[in-house]
Every structure is written in C-alpha cells, then in structure tokens.
C-alpha cells in the first residue's frame, strides 16, 4: 500500500449508534438469504421453494451428524470453517451502512483487504484439515485462485483509495458526490467485480468448491460445519457486493431516498449481477485464467492506477 497522505485534515467521526452492529448483521443475513433465493430462482426453482430452500437446508444441517473422516485435524477444520463467516462480517464493519460504518477505521481499505485474505487461510485450513483428497484439491485450487486474483484486486482497491486520497471507506464514498468512481475508473471497477467473484469463490470462479471434485473444500463437511461454511460463503458474496457500493458506486448518494436505502438498493443490484453471472458463465479454471490475470488484468489495473494518480495530482 502506498502511503497516501489524507487530503482533508482527519476529522473525528461522530459516534456510531450502538445498534449499527445489529443492523449490519441483519442486513448481511438478509442479503445472503436473498442471494441464495435468487440463485435458486435463476436455476428454475418455483415460488415457495426458492425462499424456503435455504431455510430447509439450514434446518437439515442443524439436525445432521458431523461426518468424520479418517484422522482429521479437527481444530484446523473448525478454525477454517468458522473463519469464513467471521472474515466476511469483520470485512463488512468498515462499510458504511448509510453514511457511517460500524467501525470507521482510518485504514478501512487495508482492513477490508486483510479480512478478505483470511479467506485464503479459511479455505486452505478446511481443505487440508479434513484429511481427504477432494477437499485438499479444492484447497490447492483456491490458493492458485488467490495468486491469480489478489494482485489485481489490491490494485483496484488502491485505485479507489487514491482517487479519494484516503483509506477511510466513508471518505472514499464521500469523494464520489460529483462522479461515481465506477464512471471515471471503469477498469478498476471491472477488475474489482471479477476479483470479488473470485474472492467469494462464487459462480464461474467456484472451482475450489466445484462439483467436479465432489464439492471440493466442503466435500466432507456436514452438520453444523457445513451450515457455517455455506453461510460464510453467501455472507462473503454479499460483503463483496456491498463493498463495491462505497468504493465505486457513490455509497449512499442519490436523489430523494435516504442514504441507507440507496446503499441497500445499490448493494442488491451488484449482488444480483454477481448471482446472475453464475448462470451466465461456465466455470473458469485457474490454469487458464492466471495467464490472463497476470498478463492483462494486472497491467490494465496498474495503468488505471497511473491514470488516476495523474488526474489526482
């Protein structure tokens, strides 16, 4: 991360109301549920089934036994599984719910990125710990995926921070009152969306949990382990979509409606696009994608960074 001195003198943010953590948690849960329902609807599900499907799935895992593999490393698996939703929620604490986030850190973008990187850890531990081959291969796949997406992802985040001259997410959102970053740094926005899908191992980038390796990392999970893992997966997708709003889509800025509602609407729109992409695109394998990532995505995101840097100067 380059050290970008804040353009505006650092202001002391007003206290966040004590109910915001609950609002954040509720909003994320609703978004995750909505993503699962939309996914089922696009897959041709019918009306009550698409809404009750995730609930029935959750009920099912609550009454199910854990699957025990031969000589698993149980603490590692538990840590990995629990880290997934934890990383998603912790990444979300710096995202403004309307105008203010739960924790308005001065290094919000770095915090967000650091929490995302915990997903590498979570998937690798889960895949490794259960001591079974398909999850292990899923873990390999996610590490390869991380090598492909992480650098372009970081450059996209830095570009937004550079455009606003701040690493504070609320200030990045506030810097877009005139023009959304998605409009004047479209390459960074596109790279962010691609890498967000990869980070949430969703849709075309879901090969680490792909059906061709029997569910990959989660192949041996059942009962509460699977419930926490799947919940974490959808939460992560929701957080990846929600972060696009303050970083590139102007945050809560919009006519007529209150900021929180604009934030929600924009988040739902991005989330819908990400869910839709799963149905529109076949799986993308890293043995082919990494070349494009390093030879195309990294150079163009650096170029975007340069352009933004020159404009800001």
């Amino acid at each position, binding site marked *: 991360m380059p050290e970008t001195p804040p353009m505006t003198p650092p202001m002391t943010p007003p206290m966040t109301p004590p109910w915001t953590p609950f609002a954040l948690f509720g909003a994320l849960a609703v978004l995750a549920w909505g993503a699962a329902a939309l996914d089922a609807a*696009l*897959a*041709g*599900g*019918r009306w009550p*089934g698409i809404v*009750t*499907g995730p*609930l*029935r*799935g959750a*009920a*099912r895992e*609550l*009454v*199910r*036994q*854990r*699957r*025990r*593999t*031969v*000589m698993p490393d149980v603490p590692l698996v538990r840590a990995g599984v629990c880290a997934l939703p934890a990383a998603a929620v912790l990444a979300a604490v710096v995202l403004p719910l309307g105008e203010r986030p739960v924790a308005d850190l001065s290094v919000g973008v770095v915090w967000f990125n650091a929490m995302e990187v915990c997903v590498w850890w979570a998937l690798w531990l889960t895949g490794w710990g*259960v*001591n*079974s*081959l*398909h999850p292990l*291969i899923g873990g*390999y*796949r996610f590490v390869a995926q991380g090598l492909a997406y992480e650098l372009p992802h970081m450059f996209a985040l830095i570009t937004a921070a550079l455009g606003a001259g701040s690493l504070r997410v609320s200030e990045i959102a506030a810097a877009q009152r005139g023009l959304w970053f998605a409009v004047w740094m479209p390459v960074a926005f596109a790279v962010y969306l691609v890498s967000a899908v990869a980070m949430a191992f969703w849709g*075309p980038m*879901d*090969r680490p949990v*792909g*059906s*061709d*390796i*029997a*569910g990959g990392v*989660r*192949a*041996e*999970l*059942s*009962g509460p382990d*699977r419930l926490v893992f799947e919940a974490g997966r959808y939460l992560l997708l929701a957080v990846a979509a929600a972060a696009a709003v303050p970083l590139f889509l102007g945050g809560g800025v919009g006519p007529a409606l209150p900021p929180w509602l604009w934030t929600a609407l924009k988040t739902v729109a991005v989330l819908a696009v990400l869910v839709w992409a*799963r*149905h*529109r*695109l*076949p*799986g*993308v*394998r890293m*043995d*082919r994608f990494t070349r494009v990532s390093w030879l195309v995505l990294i150079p163009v995101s650096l170029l975007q960074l340069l352009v933004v840097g020159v404009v800001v100067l």
Partner: protein
Amino acid sequence: MGLSERLLRYAAGRPRPLLAGVPHGTRVRLLAEAELTRRGWPAARSPAEADLLVVCGSPGAALAEAVEVVWADMPAPRARADLPGDLPPERVTAALDGAARHLADGRAQRLDVARRTGRSGGDHGQDEDHGSGMGGPGGLEMAGRGPDRDGLALDRLCLPLGPVLPDWPAGLLVETVAQGDVVQEARVEVLGGAGEERFWDEPWLEAARGRSVTRDEAARRTAAAHLDSLGRLLAVAGWDAEASRARRLRDRLLWERAGGEIAGDVTRFTRRVRRSRTLRWMLRGLGTIGPAPGRDGRVRGGAPDGPGTTGDGSAPRGPGTAGGAPGPAGPDRGDVPGRLEGWLARTEAALRGLGDGTRLTGDEGPRGPVGGRPPAASPAAPPVSPVLSVLSVMPGLLAGAELAAARLIIASLDPDLDQAPSSREAARA
C-alpha cells in the same frame, strides 16, 4: 424431541439426493433424475452432503461394495432408495416418496444411528475408503514420492475417481495416481450391474430383433443420449444452468414425448453453448485424440462428406478401415470442444427425424454401431463395441492431465457402460 423432530420433518421436505448410477440402470436413472428435477430436490455432490442415496439399477458385487461405502459415509439422518433396473415409472415415484418419509421419521433415524454406533464401536471413521471416490488415503499408508511432470519430487497419491460421483458415467472406476492435482497414471475399470438393458441402443436392438420401431423413436433416443452427455459435460465444466437445460430438454424428449415444438428450444440451447467464448477458452486443446494413421476418424454430424454416415451401419467407412484396424467405432477425433460440437450437431440432426413414422433399419446408435447385426463386410471379425475403444484411449488421455481437465476429458468421452461386457476389468494402461 419437539424441536429437532420438527426440524427433521421440515428438512425432509427437500432432501439432497446423491445418485449412484449402475450399468443397465440408465432408464431408471433418467426417470429418477426427471422426478428429482420436478420435485426441486437439488443433487448432492458428495456423500457428506447427501441425505438420500438413490441407487439406479442393480449393482454387481464390486459396485454394490462401493455403494455400501458411500452409504456408510452418509451422516444421519439418511435414507436410501434402491431402484432396480426394471422398475416401472410409478414405482420410482413411490420409492422416492418412501425414502422421504423415512427421512422425516425421527424414530427410524434414531434407530439407524444406534445401530451404526453399536456396530462400529462408535467410530464410523474406520470405514474403508477405497472405491467411494471421496475418501482419504484409506489405510493411512504414507504417500510415496516420485518425479512429477514439472521435475519436482512430489507425493504420489492414489485417487480413485468413481464409481459414485456426480455427473459420472455409471459403473466407471478410474484409479489414478496423482501428484498435487495432476494425474500421473490412470487405470480404467468397469464395475458392472445386473441386467441386459442398453437403454440408449434399445431402438436399434429392437429393430434388429425384428420388432417394428419407428425412426421417430430412434431420433428421440439419439437426441436424448447426446443431450444427456452434454448435460454431464456442461455440469463438469461448471455451467450448471446450461447443464440443467440440456437435461430438461432430454426429459421432455423422452418422457413428455415433446414433438417438433422442442426444436426451437434446442436451437436456443445449442446457440448459447456455441456462443460461449469462455467455454471454448476453457476446453480448447484438452483430451486431443490425434488423427489415426488410417484416417478412420468418425466425422459425423453436420458435414455430409463422410461415406459412413449414410443409411445403414453396414455402409462402407473410410478407406483406412479395410486393413482390419478395429477403429471404426472409436470416439470422435479432436479435442473436448470438438466432441462437444459433435454432440450439438448430432442432436440437431437427430431432431430433424422427429415425427418420422417409417420403420427403423440402421444399426447406427447414438454412440456408433450397436452391434445388433454383424457387419456384412467382415462377418469373421467380432464387432468391436464402441465403448471398448473409448475405454482403451482413456488412460492415455488422462496421463498428465490436471484433475479438472481429466474430469472434462472423461465427460467428453462419456462411455456408455451399458455396452461394456460385464467383466470387472475392461482396459489397462
């Protein structure tokens, strides 16, 4: 028991079935898949995810053993539906209903758990894992080392693929030695099932036996067979949306007796698949079967230049086949997207025969000559079943492939093991 009982019953409204395909159980598998789609029960990807095991067909000893391992790997609550190959459609529905009821039955589930813990001393982690396709290194032997394709010394792991995996040819077991996720060696086995039925070749076999079969029936079966293969390949390629579209079209052709109106939907499907640049990018260059010396490649479908495609299967093939090469019924030459395109083209070609009420005479089934009648040209040579030539090229194609590529290659060959002789071993590398 109030709450957990209620949760159990609520969850049983939407089980996650794992299908175990068995050779000669294709018809019942298709019936079960159509019924599961109708009910909106999403398929499980592994035993740990499944709570309903649907065995489609009557497995032989080796396959039954593998199915038992999968059954033992399934955590409670669980239920099982065994569908013998000759089960009538309405009984398929009844069997699934029964399994769902068993799943919702708290008492039965508790008994099942008690029985299991009693038998294995409270530790069902001791289940032997070979053959399930899901397990770890079963007897906990340490992985040996060996040089890999990139010149590194990496652990060599024995990774069996199949016989119970999603989107996998029924009865196929591919024993691989893998380093990382790169397949170093592969050995192909066929685990058979009881019965004689060869669902995809049925119209041609019936016609050869002298029964009257319409060309419409053959067209339906051909198109459905290719759509089934397409569904598998697209699912393995990670494109669930188009895979389920292919399967839906297949079901409409077979069970809903869809007429000419289906052609438009099929065209939309083939167009979407053909237009996907991502799919081509991902599949290009995988599993290439080079041109054989005798140029006896099966080039069928769109281009009408192959002399072997017209009329009966007894028509002369390419010039190279006269030398006794057993190659006429092999898989398509080219790579995975080439075979995908072959299926798309042949599906469209077959649909043109829909509604043709004339009598079927040929021997050319969806996967080549069905062997219903001996080839007139060389009655001495036993007809080579198409599946055997597919299985014989498979190990060579898999060696050196990364696991995802290996799965795609296998899906693009999609051997129909209903055609295989019911021996345990069919091919070795």
